């Protein structure tokens, strides 16, 4: 009698194990949707744009448009905005933006948000995340439909360098904690900037970086990489593709999480060794982008310095510095 019951319970265990294994196998075989495909459900647009010309009679743009690892370099003339709109709009995406308004930088939020409402991802759902130590100082800016703002209280620090370095940690924490349920893509932007022209879905990608306006025409030996070998952000002389700006980066949440976490870990390692990289998190960002190459690169149109004269190769400045005197702000 006991033996029979034992045999039954053994059989039940085996069945449980087998069904668990079957469940695991079937989970593995689900078609993974790990990226957003290009789908174009509305046919009307197909006859509204000209056929791409394969053989060039003249140079359409003087800029490099593909990196050596086949990531597009986005600039005016390389893409058709209407076509991209028709591709991305039906995907019902939500785009997140993080900005850090610490200390006196809260005064930039108004103009940043107003210009973003005019030019950033028009027609899409957008969620602004404003990290600040002083939520009361964040002005109420009217937002369009489908666009939201959340103020994230953040601990302030006495030195602006410290504030800058803590951003990577804050962003990665934010992605893990909150953003992953709310947005599909996230951009991490500096707040002391203004949108001047349309910034649309041409910027969306798995991992997106922007070329720094001060170094796009300069040989790599002159890039302001961290050059001390003791730092985790160290870049040797013959290394480097572009010098990317720390004021603009972004991507799909999973990739961006890994990226910002990696930067944060590298920053912590440097801190433990009592060293701070030459350009703080920008140095670490550049180090990481060499070994984890971006899937899309934005031309300096998307990160410009208004103090520089606009060269003819850059047709449309979209995001640039707000005219301010930096000296007194850093105190």
């Amino acid at each position, binding site marked *: 009698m*006991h033996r029979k*019951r*034992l045999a039954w319970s*053994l059989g039940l*265990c*085996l069945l449980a*194990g087998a069904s*668990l*294994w079957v469940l*695991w196998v079937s*989970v*593995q*075989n689900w*078609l*993974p*949707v790990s*990226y957003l*495909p*290009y789908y*174009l459900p509305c046919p009307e647009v*197909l*006859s509204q744009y000209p*056929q*791409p010309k*394969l*053989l*060039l009679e003249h140079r359409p*743009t*003087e*800029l*490099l*448009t*593909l*990196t*050596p*690892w*086949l990531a*597009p370099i*986005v600039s005016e003339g390389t*893409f*058709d905005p209407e*076509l*991209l709109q028709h591709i991305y709009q039906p995907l019902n995406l939500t785009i997140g933006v993080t900005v850090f308004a610490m200390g006196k930088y809260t005064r930039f939020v108004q103009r940043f948000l107003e210009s973003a409402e005019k030019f950033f991802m028009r027609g899409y759902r957008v969620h602004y995340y404003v990290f600040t130590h002083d939520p009361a100082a964040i002005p109420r800016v009217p937002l369009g439909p489908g666009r939201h703002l959340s103020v994230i209280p953040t601990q302030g620090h006495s030195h602006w360098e410290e504030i800058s370095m803590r951003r990577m940690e804050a962003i990665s924490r934010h992605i893990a904690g909150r953003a992953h349920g709310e947005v599909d893509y996230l951009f991490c932007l500096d707040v002391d900037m203004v949108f001047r022209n349309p910034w649309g879905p041409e910027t969306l990608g798995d991992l997106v970086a922007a070329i720094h306006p001060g170094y*796009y*025409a300069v040989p*790599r030996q002159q890039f302001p990489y961290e050059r001390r070998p003791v730092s985790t952000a160290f870049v040797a002389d*013959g*290394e*480097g*593709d*572009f010098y990317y700006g720390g004021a603009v980066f972004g991507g799909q949440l*999973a*990739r961006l999480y*890994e990226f910002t976490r990696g930067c944060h870990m590298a920053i912590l390692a440097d801190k433990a060794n009592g060293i701070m990289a030459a350009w703080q998190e920008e140095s670490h960002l550049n180090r990481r982008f*060499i*070994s*984890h*190459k971006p899937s*899309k690169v934005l031309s300096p149109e998307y990160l410009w310095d208004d103090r520089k004269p606009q060269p003819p*190769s850059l047709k449309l400045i979209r995001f640039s510095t707000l005219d301010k005197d930096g000296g007194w702000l850093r105190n």
Partner: protein
Amino acid sequence: MAEQVWTLAGKPNCRLLRPSILLLMALVLVLLGTAVREPDRLQVVTQSRMAYPQPKVLTPSRTDVLVLTPWLAPIVWEGTFNSDILNVQFQLQNTTVGLTVFAIKKYVVFLKLFLETAEKHFMAGHRVIYYVFTDRPDAVPRVALGPGRRLQVLRARPYARWQDVSMRRMQMLSEAAEQRFLREVDYLVCADVDMQFHDHVGVEILSPLFGTLHPAFYGRPREAFTYERRPQSQAHIPWDEGDFYYMGAFFGGSVPEVQRLTKACHQAMLADRANGIEAVWHDESHLNKYLLYHKPTKVLSPEYMWDQQLLGWPSVLRKLRFVAVPKNHQEIRKSESGGQPTGSPEGAGRAGRAAGN
């Protein structure tokens, strides 16, 4: 129950019970452990330091051809990419590429050259599985394969008409994608068999969905593309639409995307058949319709699909990578019973269309 088990285990004739129960519990724990393990979909790949020339922002890589489509998909030409960087990126992810090819009836004769040249030029240094669909498994030649590369013969049903042979590939690919490709490879490359590899074809082509520019139409206006123009067909494309004319002989992408494409094309062809119509260029017409609505994430230049006999070697092509093997259409298409060959040229011979215009 546990007490009963232990008291039972004490009895001489149940001595085997205790270890067998322990074994079973261990087995269940192992299965649980493997089921709970994180599926490693996102692999963080760190590239080691490499030396290569700096890309120059103010100097385009090619000034004679378009290298980016209006939807920001790269058009792959020689000079636009650095193989060293790309190889490292894909090797770090342990990429496995499946190359599918159909050798039905007499077309088995093309396999030897196809496979031998693939061994030299296709995805060198990466894991490759050749999937040879054939109705004559014994006729598949024994070709020496490099390390990390293997060949799988899959049975294919031979259809009487060559048009059906060509079109049913979509059905067989979509079925095989679901049944085996999903588990075995990361990317699929679907190629015609009457071709040979002449130069490097590597990971620069890999992306979620890619098509190849037809060698006869890459410089032509869209009105000259031989799309299916009859509105009754599922493959219909109006005169004022179309980006490129893609060749049916070389396309691919990630397994889920290729599965979607082949399934959609097969279903479209079934719908056409029910309506008593057959698209002018068969599976190629349907492929072009699909890629118009589902824009590819990479486009391959005609370097990846060429016919040197018909089209020479223009200067815009710095390399000829995948080229047609000259063949006698009449001879190869004659049915086994000695009947008449039917229809217009297919395969790489479709490149000859431009010459006739």
